[in-house]
C-alpha cells in the first residue's frame, strides 16, 4: 500500500511539473504532427498501407524519444535524483512514477496523432490501436530506465537515443506486424516484450539510481 502511495505521489509530481512547464507534451504534439505531414508528402501516391503504417510506427518511436529525453530534465538540472534516492521509499517507485507519467504523455500525443494518421493516410484497425497501447507500456518502461542511465552519464543527450533506439526495434517489429497481419501473434509478442522489459527495468532501476 505504501509502495502504491509513493508511486502516486511521484506520478502526481511529474504530471504537475508538465502541467506547469508545458514543455514536453506540446513538443511531442508538434513533432508527431510535423512528422506525419512530412511523411504524407514524402511517400509516393499509391504506396501501400503497410508502408504508411511503418511510418506511423517510426513517428511514434521518435516522438516517444523526444518525451523520454525530457523525462529526467528536472532531476538532472536541479540535482534532484540525490533527494529522491535518499528517501526511504523503494527506489523502483521513482521509475514506476516516471513511467506512468510518460505513458500519459504518449497517450495524449497519440490521441492527436492517430486521427491525424487516418486523415493523411488510411483508417486504423482496432488491432493497430491495441498495438500502440501495448507499445506505449514497453517504450515508457525501457525509455525511463535508459533516461535514468543517461542522467548518470556525461554525454547524456547521446546516451539516451543510443540505448533506447536498439531496444525499441522489437516494438516496431511487433507494431507493424500487429498492424499488417491477421491473428493476435504480434499483439502477444508486444505483451511479452512489455512483461519482460517492465520486470527488467523495475528490477534494474535500484542499481541505476544508485549511480545517478
Amino acid at each position, binding site marked *: 500500500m*505504501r509502495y502504491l*502511495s*509513493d508511486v502516486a*505521489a*511521484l506520478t502526481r*509530481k511529474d504530471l*504537475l*511539473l508538465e502541467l*506547469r*512547464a508545458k514543455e514536453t507534451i506540446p513538443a511531442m504534439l508538434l513533432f508527431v504532427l510535423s512528422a506525419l505531414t512530412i511523411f504524407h508528402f514524402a511517400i509516393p501516391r499509391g504506396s501501400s498501407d503497410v508502408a504508411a503504417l511503418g511510418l506511423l510506427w517510426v513517428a511514434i518511436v521518435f516522438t516517444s524519444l523526444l518525451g523520454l529525453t525530457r523525462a529526467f530534465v*528536472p532531476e538532472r538540472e*536541479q*540535482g*534532484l535524483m*540525490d*533527494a*529522491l*534516492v*535518499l*528517501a*526511504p*521509499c523503494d527506489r523502483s517507485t521513482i521509475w514506476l512514477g516516471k513511467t506512468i507519467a510518460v505513458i500519459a504523455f504518449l497517450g495524449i500525443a497519440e490521441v492527436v496523432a492517430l486521427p491525424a494518421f487516418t486523415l493523411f493516410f488510411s483508417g486504423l484497425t482496432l488491432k493497430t490501436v491495441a498495438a500502440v497501447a501495448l507499445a506505449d507500456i514497453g517504450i515508457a518502461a525501457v525509455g525511463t530506465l535508459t533516461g535514468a542511465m543517461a542522467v548518470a552519464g556525461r554525454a547524456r543527450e547521446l546516451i539516451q537515443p543510443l540505448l533506447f533506439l536498439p531496444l525499441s526495434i522489437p516494438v516496431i517489429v511487433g507494431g507493424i506486424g500487429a498492424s499488417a497481419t491477421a491473428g493476435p501473434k504480434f499483439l502477444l509478442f508486444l505483451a511479452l516484450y512489455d512483461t519482460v522489459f517492465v520486470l527488467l527495468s523495475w528490477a534494474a532501476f535500484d542499481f541505476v539510481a*544508485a549511480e545517478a
Partner: protein
Amino acid sequence: MVRARNLSKRFDTRRIFDKVDIDLDVGGFLLVTGPNGSGKTTLLRVLAGLAAPTGGELELPVRGEIGYLGHEPLVYKQLTPHENLTLFARLYRVPDREQRIRSLLERFALWDVRDKEVATFSRGMQQRLGLGRVLLHEPKLLILDEPFNALDTAGAALLDEELATRSARAVVVATHDPERVEGLATERLGFA
C-alpha cells in the same frame, strides 16, 4: 552514528581523499574545511550514501535517517514550497504531515509564499526551502555542504539556531567560512 576507517575515494586514478577516519556520535558536529576542489563535497556525498567509497570501512545511519543539502536546494522549481514539502513528507512518511509542513514554512518565513512557484524565488528563499526539506523528517544525521553560501542574513541566523540546538542529531558541515561554526564543532577535518 558515523564511523569511518581508512576511508578513501578515487575517480579512476585520481585520488580525491585517502585514509579518512571519522567518529561522530549523536550531538557531534564535524566541521570539514578546505579549498575548492579539495574533496569536501565528495566526502559529504560518501557520508550521505550518495557515492560509494573506493576503500575503507563506513558505518552510517539507514537511508531515511540522513538529511543532505548540497550546493543546490534540491527542490522542484516548478512546484510550490507546499507541494515540494508535501512530496518529500509523503516519501519520508512524516507523521502529522500538514502540521510539520506548516511549522517549517513559518519558521523559514515561507508560509506567505507557500503557493507560489519556487522558480520565482530568490536564491536565498530557495535555500531556505532546501533547509526546510532537509529538516522535514528530523534526520539523525544532517549533512550540509556550504549551507551559508546562498542564505541571506535572516536565513543564516535560522540555520545558526538550528545547528546550535542539534542535540538529537549529528551534523556534518563543509564550509569555506569555518569561523561561523567553529564554536559548534566537536570534530574537525581539514583538506589541503
